[in-house]
């Protein structure tokens, strides 16, 4: 074999490996059609998953008006939350349940492309089939809001959606970090996606699981998001639960900034669920 042939075969193999690794993979969704959606539970999942916090039109002050537009400044570029209202032209009004599930849990859009992981689908991947179906049943009742999407501002090579396949190969399909099987773990690791802010990242933007919930710089690098693991947060689980309900810290300071939007959601959960989140946090081992 000549050197040229060897190089040619090498390039082909490398390219083939790249394509295989980065190809969009969707979890099986056929079984979803057998489930009946409960929009009331869907509304609750909507709150626990914090969909409105990123996707609502802030100016409207209406958490059900999901026309997007909020900017998320990161080291990879500035991303704008898309319109996920029931508008057929500007939102997801034409989607099926399968499209919705693939977006939420696999980070794949209806054209079969990867979503940028600003959308925390690596966490939503842990959502149960029933919760996805219920959430979609609720979603169908939301208003259609006409408002065109704003294009993300990302520089090459981060703008290449295909490359996200490599990122997913590294960081998606991760098991539960702690207390798998408990309600608290489901609320924190699947729905609440708390780690996305509260856990530091490596240079590729993947979560550093070894430093789980120990705080991190904010995505735009300008603020510090505090640790909530017991190694550094010394609040009792009652104090954490109180904070999630009222926003009051044990010293009666009041939540501010982006966390205020989180407390808008957690204040609407059941007391048992807030307690479960608090218990999960205080039980984290370090």
């Amino acid at each position: 074999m000549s050197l040229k042939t060897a190089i040619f075969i090498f390039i082909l193999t490398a390219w083939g490996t790249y394509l295989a690794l980065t190809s969009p993979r969707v979890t099986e969704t056929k079984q979803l059609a057998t489930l009946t959606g409960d929009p009331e539970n869907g509304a609750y999942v909507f709150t626990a998953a914090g969909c409105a916090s990123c996707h609502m039109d802030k100016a409207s002050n209406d958490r059900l008006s999901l026309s997007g537009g909020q900017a998320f400044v990161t080291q990879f570029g500035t991303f704008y939350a898309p319109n996920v209202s029931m508008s057929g032209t500007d939102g997801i009004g034409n989607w099926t349940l399968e499209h919705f599930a693939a977006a939420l849990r696999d980070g794949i859009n209806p054209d079969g492309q990867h979503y940028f992981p600003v959308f925390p689908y690596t966490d939503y991947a842990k959502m149960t089939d029933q919760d996805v179906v219920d959430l979609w049943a609720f979603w169908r009742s939301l208003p259609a809001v006409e408002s065109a999407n704003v294009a993300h501002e990302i520089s090459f090579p981060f703008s290449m959606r295909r490359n996200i396949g490599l990122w997913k190969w590294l960081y998606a399909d991760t098991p539960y970090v702690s207390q798998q099987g408990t309600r608290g773990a489901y609320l924190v690791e699947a729905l609440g996606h708390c780690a996305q802010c509260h856990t530091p990242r490596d240079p590729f933007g993947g979560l550093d699981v070894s430093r789980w919930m120990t705080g991190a710089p904010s995505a735009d690098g300008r603020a510090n998001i505090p640790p909530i693991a017991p190694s550094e947060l010394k609040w009792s689980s009652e104090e954490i639960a109180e904070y999630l309900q009222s926003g009051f810290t044990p010293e009666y300071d009041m939540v501010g900034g982006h966390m205020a939007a989180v407390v808008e959601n957690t204040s609407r959960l059941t007391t048992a669920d807030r307690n479960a989140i608090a218990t999960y946090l205080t039980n984290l081992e370090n």
Partner: protein
Amino acid sequence: MKLKWLFAPLSLIIATTAFAHEDVKNPTVKARMMAMSNIAGQMKTLGGMAKGAVAFDLEQAKAALAEIEKTAKTVPALFKDNETDPKSEALPAIWSNYADFTAKSDAMTSAAANALTSFASQDDLVPSMQALGGSCKGCHSAYRK
């Protein structure tokens, strides 16, 4: 003077030590923080009663509410000048949206005043704290880091 009337201003001292603002250099910023710490200290008094950690005392509760109302009234003036400090958590939006900031501050003043006029028993504690907490959060979510 009844000792219990000392309690509200005394908690100012306790509250400010709890929030440790020694590193703050700018006097205007420090004054802002002290006002907020004072409000927190009064809320802590009410919170202690609400949780049953301390016995409910109607006069002390009303004194705390009165101190919150009095302090809340000073907030717009305290934040009028765009003074900064490395330790400040005030967002620039305060001065670009000063009218809205003032409105949100007035919401706290009103919440405290309303709570005070109808406050009669322990049952009024939690609703008062919820109303006040809502006014805190409403401002902090927009104007604090």
